[in-house]
């Protein structure tokens, strides 16, 4: 790269601010680091970027903070809001993805105790989000509020503790599954695989197929 022409700038030079802030992808970080190593002028300009970064942080930090009344004002407004209805129309995929976003596979799988904790977390989260108790006291799935969750063919599933949000979301969507109830003892969920009853052999075939997915820790047929 030639940076001797002061008017010219490359895509690498445009990335310097993000490199300084540490928000580049690994690939771009390597590209920038290689360019910095071989181009002294670019390295000099990078030093300017680092100065800007430091002073921008300092400038923002000196801006102070809002008064303690800010939170009071907010909650006064929240209190004035109409009572919230149960969120029956929430998208299943989005909710599961949102909840599991912070639970990285590495974090969840680092030990047996972490795995057990993950099952507990999954139980709590899926119970709190996917299954919504309706006003009549029954349950309905967030993704299919208009269908009767008591009708169809069902399996019992325990998700693998290392399963990520994307994995679970993709698994449920790809296989057109709906969580009908749970969590039960051992972190099990009752999952509907078809909206109508299925012959035993057909249900067994589906269970066998689902069992091969890495998201599934345990699966069995159920009524």
């Amino acid at each position, binding site marked *: 790269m030639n940076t001797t022409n002061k008017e010219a700038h490359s895509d690498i030079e445009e990335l310097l601010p993000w490199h300084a802030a540490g928000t580049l992808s690994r690939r771009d970080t390597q590209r920038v680091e290689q360019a910095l190593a071989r181009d002294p002028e670019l390295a000099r300009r990078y030093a300017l970027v680092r100065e800007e970064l430091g002073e921008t942080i*300092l400038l923002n930090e000196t801006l102070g903070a809002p008064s303690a009344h800010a939170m009071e004002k907010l909650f006064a407004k929240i209190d004035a809001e109409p009572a919230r209805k149960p969120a029956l129309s*929430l998208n299943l995929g989005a909710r599961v993805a*949102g909840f599991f976003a912070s639970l990285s596979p590495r974090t969840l799988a680092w030990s047996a105790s972490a795995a057990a904790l993950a099952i507990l977390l999954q139980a709590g989260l899926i119970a709190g989000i996917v299954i919504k108790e309706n006003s009549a006291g029954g349950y309905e799935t967030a993704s299919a509020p208009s269908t009767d969750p008591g009708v169809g063919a069902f399996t019992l599933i325990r998700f693998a503790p290392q399963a990520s949000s994307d994995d679970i979301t993709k698994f449920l969507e790809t296989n057109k599954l709906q969580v009908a109830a749970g969590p039960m003892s051992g972190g099990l969920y009752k999952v509907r695989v078809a909206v109508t009853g299925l012959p035993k052999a057909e249900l067994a075939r589906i269970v066998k197929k689902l069992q091969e997915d890495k998201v599934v820790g345990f699966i069995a047929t159920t009524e």
Partner: protein
Amino acid sequence: MQTTSDEVLIARIAGGDRLAMQVLFARHHVRVYRFVLRLVRNEATAEDLISEVFLDVWRQAGKFEGRSAVSTWMLSIARFKALSVLRRKPEQELDEEAAEQIEDHADNPEVALAKKDKAAVLRQALSKLSAEHREIVDLVYYHEKSVEEVAGIVGIPEATVKTRMFYARKKLSELLKEQGIDRGWP
């Protein structure tokens, strides 16, 4: 111990959990306030705006799909609210407020150089950037947003994000030069 993630808090807020709202507010309100303050340049307005921003978070939490970080989503809301306020205010009023906010640490280039306080002059120059340039500099340097995230917040293509940042920095150099500091770039 790992703290509860923003995504988990948002899901709880969607279910009407006030405590989750308090946690999220405590975690982010200062940064959101500073982002808004740099745009509207009025402390009272900025403080009013953050309660509006977090009220929107309370109302819209159920629609949050996790496609971006929660902080990025909140800054998008904050930016929209700030720009709405700016559009409503008379231009003259804004200019006066902006003039009051710009600190004049150095009366002239000689004084600045005599003080050898290049950092202070740099901060002064950062304050004098246009709102568009201030915004992008803050998002990249202070709020640590990636190219993609800035594009999402500001609503411009990623290529434009990079060129806008480049020209913001170029303008910064020009402002420094006016104060007697030649960075040898661009």
